[in-house]
């Protein structure tokens, strides 16, 4: 999906979120309205400044009249829309999604470079995940330290594809992509070559900063030292869409 181009003649709609009335531009998505109005909806793959993939489903909401749950990041507001963001059912689904993310790969927070600065950890705490009910997959994943500045640890990757999108849409290098299906799915650099051998990577570090977990990190960081700075993204994204 291309980045939204600001329009001059957008209409304003009114909608109800959790019983409160709000007005919004008709080209906005539910999550954008909620972020502006400090209504907390968890999200993982969505990021202000990147295109929308609607992949993680953490942002699901209930919309009156719709039989299905909808991803708030991939659904535009409509006049008269009635949205619920935090029902028992939604809490149950979100909890399960976060648990599955922990069960899928190997997250050992106590020894992770991102400990204390990780969006997945934070999601677990806010969604009430204090243990994982399903069995862990316990599959081993590789760590690629071939890049002179950065490292990818696939044990910590949640496949949000933020790295893929920022590298393609903002940096314009398209070093990252996704390979394989189902449990064999993995992000890769170039055509699954070691990152250090990549000819397309400019070493800009954008992917490292937007990665929500300890999957993409700077070399030389120790436990809890990897603090990310994502402020650049919305600034760059806005400038690009105005060109």
């Amino acid at each position, binding site marked *: 999906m291309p980045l939204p181009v600001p329009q001059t003649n957008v209409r304003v709609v009114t909608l109800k979120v959790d019983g409160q009335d709000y007005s919004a531009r008709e080209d906005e998505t539910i999550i954008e309205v909620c972020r502006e109005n400090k209504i907390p909806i968890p999200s993982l793959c969505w990021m202000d400044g990147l295109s929308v993939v609607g992949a993680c489903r953490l942002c699901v909401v209930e919309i009156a009249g719709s039989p299905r749950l909808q991803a708030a990041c991939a659904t535009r507001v409509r006049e008269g829309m009635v949205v619920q963001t935090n029902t028992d059912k939604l809490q149950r689904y979100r909890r399960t999604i976060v648990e599955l993310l922990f069960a899928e790969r190997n997250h050992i927070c*106590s020894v992770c470079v991102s400990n204390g600065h990780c969006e997945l950890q934070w999601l677990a705490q806010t969604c009430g995940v204090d243990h994982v009910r399903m069995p862990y997959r316990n599959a081993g994943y590789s760590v690629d330290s071939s890049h002179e500045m950065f490292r990818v640890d696939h044990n910590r990757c949640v496949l949000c594809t933020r790295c893929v999108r920022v590298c393609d849409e903002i940096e314009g290098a398209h070093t990252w992509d996704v390979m394989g299906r189902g449990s064999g799915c993995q992000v890769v650099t170039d055509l699954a070559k070691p990152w250090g051998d990549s000819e397309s990577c400019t070493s800009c570090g954008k992917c490292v900063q937007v990665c929500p977990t300890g999957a993409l990190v700077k070399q030389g960081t120790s436990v809890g030292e990897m603090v990310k700075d994502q402020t650049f993204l919305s600034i760059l994204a806005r400038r690009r869409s105005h060109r």
Partner: protein
Amino acid sequence: MSGNGSKVTVATTWLDGCSGCHMSFLDMDQRLVDLAEQIDIVYSPLVDTKELPEQVDLGILEGSISSDEDLHKAREFRARCKLLLSLGDCAVNGNVPAMRNPFKLDDVIERAYRENVDVNPQIPTEGVPALLATVRPVHHVVDVDIFVPGCPPHADTIHYVLTELIAGRTPDPGRVTRFGA
């Protein structure tokens, strides 16, 4: 929660953990004096008793299930404790002990006791419990009532959870701790 008489009886033990959670328990410092008036530690590495009593109000387990002895202890605690609490990340999610799970047990033992040993390498078999192929969190082998993540959970966290339980309330540990805290 109230025990026999007025004090709440508490049993603790460590499974595959580093004992750090028990150290954090001791880190409650002077608050332990007040706690001692409300709880009676009837079995624990911190006291002398050698036998787990038949009936205990609260059981606290540190560490993951990594050997057949851990499994046996967890089952015994579950059978004898009214409430069972998983203390710390190893008990709650496997944590560092579970880092061996992606590897075959034989390879792990080979690496630890032969490959990396210079003098007299040998695999211990006598007087040590047999390791299980997969390390699991406590609640994957017995039902657990309360989860207190953290590596180790802060003394303030343990104090909060215990005082809530003593007062008969259900603590919400997620308010004060998380994985890796």
